[in-house]
């Protein structure tokens, strides 16, 4: 039964995601390309249709010369050029879907403007596609180390017990589901690379590392999975560094590919701002406040607290403590990256990350959390009484998460700044 579920989980999720997508966008006033999704996507029409890397032609054609505030494209103060707050990685991953939307638009005589019907749904459905692809990769990682029952429970929990499904379907043009896909693939490739480095997996390592950084610069912290993979004690660290040095030939090749792949982004920054490395947000005078992180808010608040909105992730915390065998080697990277991710999110000027279901800063790293949730289920599986409790609590938390996601979709739950009173008033209610 569990093996049947594991085998068909990805296909079933694809069907459910497509149905959810149709339901959401047949009743939503917002098109799939909205909010931050606009900034991630706008590279494609600007480059492929307007043949302009500087975003100027599109601004003139659509907005009379200046981008609206929601677009996330301010002018750089010293050069006057447009600078995109959102890096180009998401657009690179969306590009095949954009190409299909572009060809279909020409075929059906729809306007070739980058934002008409097919472009919208090509971009939106690319989120669904990367969600499904990521789950396939995650399933592959999990089936290498866990039983079918544990794998199935983990896949269900990570897909619907967190905000992952939301970021594949409702906000599929945001960067998070793309990052989730890349991080899952990164874990798989890192594991294969440590098992035995080859030219193909070393080059893939470099390309993946670059894409992770290109989709979201702060996600460079996920590259720590490479040196920390398999580290279970402080003394392992030195051995790991030695092992990396022994593989310097492969690592060097990966670095060459990685640096070459991030060069276009650096060139674009140079062209827009006269700097090779820059935070585009400084054009708006916003950024991190590392001295006053909102740690409690980010983790536990009603506004966007990670564990408040996705309480099922407590299983990952317990999993980090009880992990055995292979999973022990994932605990250190997961804990270090989670700590850094929390500190970064809590120090960001808008620690809630605007309108979002749950805290979206953590969606990118759910692949690591999934491994720890699997470790938790594996531990629970050998304890009969605990298994009974978890078999009731886990489905209940998944149902709660799905209900709250649908409340968010239908506007029954505030999109930001949720107070305890608002939460209680709308708890399990659909207006």
């Amino acid at each position, binding site marked *: 039964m569990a093996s049947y579920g594991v085998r068909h989980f990805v296909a079933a999720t694809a069907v459910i995601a497509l149905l959810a997508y149709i339901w959401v966008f047949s009743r939503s006033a917002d098109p799939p390309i909205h909010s931050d999704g606009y900034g991630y996507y706008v590279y494609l029409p600007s480059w492929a249709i307007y043949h302009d890397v500087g975003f100027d032609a599109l601004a003139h054609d659509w907005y*009379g010369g200046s981008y609206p505030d929601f677009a996330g494209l301010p002018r750089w103060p010293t050069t006057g050029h447009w600078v995109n707050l959102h890096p180009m990685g998401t657009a690179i991953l969306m590009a095949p879907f954009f190409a299909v939307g572009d060809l279909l638009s020409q075929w059906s005589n729809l306007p070739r403007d980058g934002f008409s019907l097919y472009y919208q749904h090509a971009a939106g459905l690319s989120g669904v596609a990367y969600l499904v692809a990521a789950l396939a990769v995650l399933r592959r990682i999990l089936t290498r180390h866990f039983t079918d029952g544990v794998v199935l429970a983990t896949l269900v929990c990570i897909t619907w017990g967190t905000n992952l499904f939301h970021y594949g379907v409702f906000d599929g043009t945001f960067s998070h589901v793309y990052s989730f896909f890349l991080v899952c693939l990164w874990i798989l490739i890192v594991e294969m690379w440590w098992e035995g480095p080859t030219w193909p997996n070393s080059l893939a390592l470099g390309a993946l590392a670059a894409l992770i950084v290109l989709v979201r610069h702060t996600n460079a912290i996920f590259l720590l999975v490479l040196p920390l993979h398999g580290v279970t004690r402080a003394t392992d660290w030195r051995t790991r560094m030695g092992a990396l040095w022994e593989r310097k030939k492969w690592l060097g090749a990966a670095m060459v590919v990685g640096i070459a792949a991030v060069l276009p982004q650096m060139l674009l920054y140079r062209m827009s701002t006269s700097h090779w490395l820059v935070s585009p947000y400084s054009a708006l005078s916003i950024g991190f406040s590392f001295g006053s992180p909102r740690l409690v808010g980010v983790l536990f608040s009603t506004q966007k607290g990670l564990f408040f909105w996705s309480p099922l992730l407590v299983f990952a915390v317990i999993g980090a403590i009880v992990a055995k065998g292979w999973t022990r080697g994932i605990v250190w990277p997961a804990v270090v990256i989670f700590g850094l991710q929390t500190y970064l999110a809590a120090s960001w000027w808008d620690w809630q990350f605007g309108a979002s279901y749950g805290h979206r800063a953590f969606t990118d790293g759910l692949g690591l959390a999934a491994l720890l949730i699997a470790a938790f289920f594996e531990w629970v599986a050998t304890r009969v009484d605990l298994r009974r409790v978890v078999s009731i609590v886990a489905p209940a938390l998944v149902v709660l998460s799905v209900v709250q996601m649908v409340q968010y979709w239908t506007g029954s739950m505030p999109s930001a700044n949720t107070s305890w009173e608002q939460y209680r008033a709308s708890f399990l209610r659909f207006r």
Partner: protein
Amino acid sequence: MSRRNATAIACAVSVVVALAYLYDPPWIGGVTSGMGGWEYSDPDTVFRWTNGRASLFIPSHATAVIIPLRSGFPHPFGGAVTVEIRVDDRFLATIALKDPGEWVRQELPLGNRPTRRRFRRIDLHVDRVVGQRLLGVMTGPPTIW
């Protein structure tokens, strides 16, 4: 025939059938792009706002079209708000809207360029937008001959 080959052939046939259908789908006449919902300024006037770019479709048998246009707001740099109109990517006219309160109804001959499609695409390009809603110009329901 193996199951894999049968699946590949079924997929290929599905793609061809889908493409044949999407070349001239019947629902495209109701598709618009870059346009808001219909609004009423008084019982007799129905309109919708465009963005900086907007597209709509009219039946391909039409020989001429009138698309009522009104700028609603003056041009930020003074002068007329201009709307460039194209049909199936072919330039048709540039209409200058000098008075923000005046509806301009200019008949535009479409020519008789042959098409195998049921609908022609009309693109409007406005040279400025207004406010956070990115308003272009007000358009009324098109009249065709």
